[in-house]
């Protein structure tokens, strides 16, 4: 009998499995259950984009593309970033098309981090940054963002976290799960802190299109930060294309060149069909983004009002499609709240602790769901909270 535990990488075994699985396993067995747990658009990819993918198959475009992605796609990405965010990247040397934003994050970390290097990660945030850092032999250093700072990372907090070993700061804004966004002034303050250092930034901007009331500002929009910024974005959230697995990374040519080697050995090239679809998304999809964003915004306001009306403290999210209310007033832990809410009222939401220790006392509710689902979930939450009193 082989003892696999002795054989497998200790590093991999040290990674925590997702603590969320139990909720979805329970959810699967329930009738009339509502899930506001999954973080993906409830829309189907707009037809003209799907059609472009189908047409590429009809045309027989079934082979690899160049490693960095089709030139035409990279050119459209550059045009898009210029048009929507006033960012300028050279499509031929500064952009790699990746398998989702996740691969782009992994490439950045692996290309930059040496054993023992510290990677600063704000929490609560999406779950992948810590494990990816660990796999690259880096050391995650967490900064806890706070509701009173609108879940932004402040220059003071960053300054305190920096040591001589700091290599990289991950900046997940607009933020999953809090909905916090960074403003130009926040970046300018951070630029002052970083001045004179060699610290790089990895800006995960997958929700950049989904901001409400104000336009997204990238750290790369700040001239002093441009040279130290790696920008990650993708098609999943803006165009409801999660299953197409397509993202991209932009940054300084020398770094991109090194990242391309990792991508080339591990991936070869992103799915060709998805690349064709993405070209169509970038060319004709602005209107789809607006349409979906408007729907999210309606649901956002509906959910926010509903939560506040039942007395829950809730930061008004400025981006992405999550609400991150405090459930401290119920006296329950995040995990107990979510477990009981699911068992007693058949609604799945995610405990804040899944996104970092300081998520305790919060839950994440996705509003990428129908108005009907949101209304039903609110009603059930009202009943649930009433019973707790």
């Amino acid at each position, binding site marked *: 009998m082989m003892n696999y535990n002795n054989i497998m990488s200790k590093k991999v075994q040290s990674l925590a499995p*997702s603590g*969320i*699985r139990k909720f*979805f*396993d329970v*959810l*699967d067995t329930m009738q009339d259950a509502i899930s506001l747990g*999954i*973080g*993906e658009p409830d829309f189907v990819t707009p037809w003209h984009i799907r059609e472009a993918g189908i047409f590429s198959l009809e045309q027989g475009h079934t082979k690899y593309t160049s490693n960095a992605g089709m030139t035409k796609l990279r050119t459209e990405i550059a045009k898009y970033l210029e048009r929507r965010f006033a960012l300028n990247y050279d499509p031929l040397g500064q952009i790699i098309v990746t398998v989702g934003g996740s691969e782009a994050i992994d490439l950045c970390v692996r290309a930059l981090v040496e054993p023992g290097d510290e990677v600063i990660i704000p929490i609560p945030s*999406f*779950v992948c940054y810590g494990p990816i850092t660990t796999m690259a032999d880096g050391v995650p250093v967490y900064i806890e963002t706070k509701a009173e700072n609108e879940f932004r990372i402040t220059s003071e907090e960053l300054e305190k976290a920096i040591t001589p070993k700091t290599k990289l700061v991950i900046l997940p804004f607009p933020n*999953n799960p809090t909905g916090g966004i960074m403003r130009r002034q926040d970046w300018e303050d951070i630029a002052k802190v970083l001045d004179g250092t060699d610290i790089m930034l990895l800006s995960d901007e997958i929700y950049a299109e989904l901001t409400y009331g104000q336009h997204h500002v990238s750290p790369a929009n700040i001239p002093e930060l441009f040279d130290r910024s790696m920008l990650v974005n993708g098609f999943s959230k803006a165009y409801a294309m*999660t299953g197409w697995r397509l993202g991209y990374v932009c940054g300084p040519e020398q770094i991109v060149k090194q990242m391309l080697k990792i991508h080339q050995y591990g991936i070869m090239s992103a799915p060709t069909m998805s690349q064709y679809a993405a070209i169509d998304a970038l060319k004709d999809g602005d209107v789809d983004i607006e349409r979906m964003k408007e729907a999210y915004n*309606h*649901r956002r*306001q*509906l959910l926010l*009002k*509903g939560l506040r009306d039942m007395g829950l403290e809730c930061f008004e999210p400025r981006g992405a499609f999550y609400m991150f209310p405090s459930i401290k007033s119920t006296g329950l832990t995040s995990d107990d709240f979510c477990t009981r809410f699911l068992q007693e009222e058949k609604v799945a939401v995610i405990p804040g602790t*899944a996104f970092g220790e300081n998520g305790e006392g919060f839950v994440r509710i996705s509003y990428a769901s129908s*108005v009907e689902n949101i*209304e039903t979930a609110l009603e059930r939450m009202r009943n649930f909270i009433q019973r707790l009193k």
Partner: protein
Amino acid sequence: MTEILKLLEEDSRYTPAQIAAMTGKDEAQVRSIIKKCEEEHIINGYTALIDWDRTSEESVTAFIEVKITPQRDDGFDRIARRIYQYEEVESLYLMSGAFDLAVTVTAKSLKDVAQFVSAKLAPIDGVRSTATHFILKKYKDKHRSFQVEAEQEERVLFV
């Protein structure tokens, strides 16, 4: 106003309270905008989208192209009025192109539609010709697909 109209067009069951929450307006304001739109006939009614094919109810719908001779002073309007007043007429559009009026008619049977065309529609003064097409299947109406899409398999993915 446009935002409210768009929401009602998406789902006319939304209550003023829901619309108020979604748009960040107050409820009284939403109520008064809706009322005003009703009074000004911007909103002309509220209805449900029903796929009668899934019921035991027998009915047929026909799409009829009508060519007419426009009349002095009234143009197409007077003839149109004489057509749309019939209960059977579900919709009526004035068209550009090869014919003038597009009429959709719903009735219990093919025979009833034929009866409507020959006894009521064709004899109207000014109607030059009609061409009747029967609708075989409704795939989509008012932006809603009438097909039931296959459900996606459950996913236990954490993002």
